[in-house]
């Protein structure tokens, strides 16, 4: 199912890779909360959602994509773990200064996209587009996996 362009590479692993990562994270979840299992569905749902995103980022190739790196960094920060990746290009400073200067712009579509895609705040527009494409593919994969899981586990 991996599709590729001539110059832009947006390959995404197969569905089972996502599935395995997600299941692993779910099993992690169960082991982490053995007794004091807070039975509020909301709490569990939130945990599951976080686990889903982290597993998706891992499955999509941990540090080879900007958005996955940003996601994992964000998750690690929430757990108070400091995880840092080497080799991060920073073509950033000029862009940031220009944004501050013209701050009164109406929220354009690209700005909204930056808010949605993790790590999109400091990316060039062309890079943002690439990351969005890969992000969309990975998201749809993850949704398929979770749908299969729910369908399999729900009482018939």
């Amino acid at each position: 199912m991996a599709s590729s362009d001539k110059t832009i590479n947006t390959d995404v692993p197969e569905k089972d890779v996502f599935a395995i990562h997600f299941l692993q994270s779910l099993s992690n979840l169960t082991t982490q909360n053995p007794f004091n299992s807070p039975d509020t569905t909301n709490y569990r749902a939130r945990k599951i959602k976080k686990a889903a995103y982290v597993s998706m980022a891992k499955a999509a190739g941990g540090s080879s994509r900007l958005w996955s790196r940003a996601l994992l960094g964000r998750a690690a920060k929430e757990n108070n773990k400091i995880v840092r990746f080497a080799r991060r290009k920073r073509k950033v400073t000029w862009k940031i200064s220009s944004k501050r200067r013209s701050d009164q712009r109406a929220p354009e579509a690209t700005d909204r996209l930056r808010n949605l895609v993790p790590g999109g705040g400091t990316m060039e527009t062309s890079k943002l587009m690439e990351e969005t494409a890969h992000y969309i593919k990975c998201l749809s994969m993850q949704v398929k996996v979770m749908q299969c899981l729910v369908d399999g586990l729900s009482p018939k």
Partner: protein
Amino acid sequence: MDLTHGFGARSGIGPVTGLESLNFSDEFRQLVTTTPPENSGGSFTALLEMPVTQAMELLHFTDSSSSQTNITKLAGDISPHPFGTLTFPSNSLLLDRAARFSVIATEQNGYISGETPSSSANLDRVKAEPAETDSVSENQNSKQNQNKRKEREKKAKSSMKKTKSSVEEDKLPYVHVRARRGQATDNHSLAERARREKINARMKLLQELVPGCDKIQGTALVLDEIINHVQSLQRQVEMLSMRLAAVNPRIDFNLDTILASENGSLMDGSFNGESYHQLQQWPFDGYHQPEWGREEDQHQADFPMGSTTLQPNQKISEPKRCRRRSP
């Protein structure tokens, strides 16, 4: 008698050519005298393939010769002849050139040759023709000359523009951007154009990805659609996670059953070697087993240890079992 010779030769070919050459001589004069500064691509002298001065000389030379009298003799019947001081080109070279030009013109002025009966050409006929058709043909020829000139000038200008843009392009060989006609070609705009093309290419990629974006015209709407799609996917993830949380009040992940239940959906022959390698790379043993051990101590419940430890061999055997179960 140069003129008669000329006429005789001409009439053999066809009266029309003689006509044309007659008319052209006048046109030559007009063109050459009135528009001397008109230069390279456009003027008639380029057609003649000789410099202006030489052409002028030839014309004046023929003028000075006694051709005038000859002409008046011939065209004596036709008194109000417009070509009063006809300077018929007696030079053979000029005649050839004129013939060529007339041939070209006759191709365009096809109807004139169609009208005039071409079979038997008498001198009288030839003389009579100019009186009737000469004004018409003169206008035609003049128009055609001017049109031809304009076309040539236009072509020259356009070619010059194209060459200019291509020259500019050659100066910057490392930028593989084609400077189109009428667009600026300095460094900044080239870089801008390259960047814009990059963004447009990626936008096309996104358009193919998001369903229903091909029909939309305009980048703003496409971007809105993409944003909607991303938001909907994120909402779906949240919804499914809530459903997952609700499905099992106590998430006891009996992986055996999970894998069995997902039999038909996920694992229909889609397991490839990669996933196995990934599994083997995972540091399961050192990481999970103590926790599993703790679990076993504290939970007497449904944790079938054997089947839930994710060891490579175990994993490999799982799909086989599942595949057996699948119909």
